[in-house]
């Protein structure tokens, strides 16, 4: 059972800083997702935890052991790679058994564990095959089974679903969640797919430019972004932002409307597209594009010259050129500091 602590870990590749002094604690049995666009440092952080990359500074602790100087094999981790990394010269059985044989487990135990994890991943009929005879989804299952069979303290997953087609990804996502929850293993999962992150994670660490911007429960990350970046990265469509003029005493004028806000010098108004509804009075939105999506309608508009999106009930007829007043749900309004881009509480 292992808690993971990352203390001040930084990584430079030559002049490029991939990670700026990252601090993160992952609880025992927690499912932590590292989420960010490509190049944000999420894979580098995962590889540092795995021992495939050495940090330029900082410490990595797994359980009560400091591991940043240890090779991968001594860290009690198992990893699932983006391209599966199933050994092509071994059968599925020997692939899953590979780590167990390295650990010199008795044959009976090897067979028991391979059979069990193969059943868990529904690949028991493939045990005699080679990776060349498997589909992408089956290889993915072998890779996960190989990691689970190790019964590691920590499972690390590097975009494990990104090479699968959309339908298979959906299916595997649900299955992975079930299997990993049952195995009670601490999991760190890297992805750039926010839906994947929201659906799998106990907690999400949103990363940007080598920093962890926010690490919190999915609903918190969605509802209360700690920074403007999080709001604009998570959610589809992302959060709307509008400039606000302070009229004193915590009152702010936004596109001709007055809202209650924080008592600070300067602030930026933010609202999620689905937290808007048409009303008698509100932010006047000049409709540009209307996209009916079935359950609701996505409206792309302009408010005070700024791009603005709203997700509305589909029962209302809206056409481009209309000007509709959109009222935000008051307790869903968020405020950000226009200079630091951090949330104002």
């Amino acid at each position, binding site marked *: 059972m292992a808690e993971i602590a990352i203390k001040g870990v930084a990584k430079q590749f030559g002049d490029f800083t991939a990670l700026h002094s990252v601090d993160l604690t992952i609880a025992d049995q927690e499912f932590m997702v590292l989420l960010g666009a490509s190049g944000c440092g999420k894979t580098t952080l995962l590889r540092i935890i795995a021992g495939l990359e050495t940090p330029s500074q900082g410490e990595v602790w797994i359980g009560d052991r400091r591991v940043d100087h240890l090779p991968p094999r001594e860290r009690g981790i*198992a*990893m699932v*790679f983006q391209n599966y990394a199933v050994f*092509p010269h071994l059968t599925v059985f020997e692939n899953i058994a590979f780590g167990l044989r*390295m650990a010199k487990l008795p044959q009976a135990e090897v067979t028991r564990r391979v059979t069990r994890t193969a059943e868990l991943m529904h690949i028991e009929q493939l045990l005699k095959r080679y990776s060349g005879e498997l589909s992408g989804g089956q290889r993915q299952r072998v890779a996960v089974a190989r990691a689970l069979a190790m019964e590691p303290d920590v499972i690390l997953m590097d975009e494990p679903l990104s090479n699968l087609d959309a339908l298979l990804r959906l299916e595997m996502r649900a299955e992975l969640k079930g299997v990993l929850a049952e195995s009670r293993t601490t999991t760190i999962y890297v992805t750039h797919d926010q839906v994947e992150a929201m659906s799998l994670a106990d907690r999400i660490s949103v990363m940007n430019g080598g920093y962890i911007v926010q690490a919190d429960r999915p609903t918190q990350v969605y509802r209360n972004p700690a920074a403007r970046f999080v709001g604009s990265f998570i959610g589809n469509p992302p959060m709307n932002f509008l400039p606000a003029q302070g009229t004193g005493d915590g009152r702010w004028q936004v596109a001709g409307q007055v809202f209650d806000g924080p008592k600070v010098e300067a602030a930026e108004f933010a609202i999620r597209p689905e937290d808007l509804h048409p009303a008698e009075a509100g932010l006047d939105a000049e409709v540009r594009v209307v996209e009916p999506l079935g359950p609701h309608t996505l409206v792309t508009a302009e408010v005070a010259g700024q791009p603005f999106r709203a997700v509305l009930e589909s029962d209302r007829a809206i056409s481009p050129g209309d000007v509709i007043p959109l009222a935000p749900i008051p307790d869903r309004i968020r405020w950000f500091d226009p200079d630091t881009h951090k949330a104002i509480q």
Partner: protein
Amino acid sequence: MSDVTPPAPRPEEVGRAGRFLFWAGIGLLVLWVLVPIWFLFVNALSAPSEVTSFPKRLWPSFDMASLQFFWNFQGVTRALWNSVKVAVLTMILSIGMGAPAGYALSRFDFPGKEFFRVLVIMTRAFPLPLLALPLAVMFIRTGLDDTVLGLALVHAMLALPFAVLITYSLFSGIPVELEEAAWTLGCTRFQAFVKVVLPLALPGIAASAVFAFVISWNEVFAAAVLTIENRTLTAFLLQSLNVSPLPLKFAGGAALVLPALIFIFAVRKYLFAMWGIANR
């Protein structure tokens, strides 16, 4: 006057002419390679009296007199045995040094990597005759002259660039994630290499070993300069060329070409891979 454009050739005519040129080119290249080989084998496998006759038979008479004569010729078996020893030693030396270099080139980033790659190829830029005299002097001083090891060292130097480049492309074709997966599953770097990389690279390494063998087997200049008593077959034939009868020359030539042909044919896939032509 209306504009009169010359009638354009019909597409199928163009296609036919193109195909003709294509196949004619292929035919020419094939003949370029095959005619000397055919000539060699027809003469080697015919009776000594037929060698000087004209016209040639398309198919040899399978008279073994020439080969028998060659085989019983004073010193041939000894030279053949020397050739085998030198070639095997060359193979071991060039793979023993070349494969680790190829692995390092494909897996590690180190300062001067590009320079090293150029340098590896540069070793082939020095003409052997230029090196022969200093080498001979050095070998005589160190006692390596006229030894199997000494000649194998020179041949290994000739084969090494190919060994490095073939194994480099070979190791680069094996995803590094396979090794990393092995590390996370309990392997040291060396164990991962032995259990994962080696089994996948083995056919290619064997191919590059065979190629080193062939380079040594066919090499004549260094062999002729650096050995006196322990001549390899090529050096032996070169030495006795002007004093031996024609059938012996053909039989010797055939004996030299055959193993090289067979080996190269067996490993052709990997040689293509070395030149960057995907053939899988």
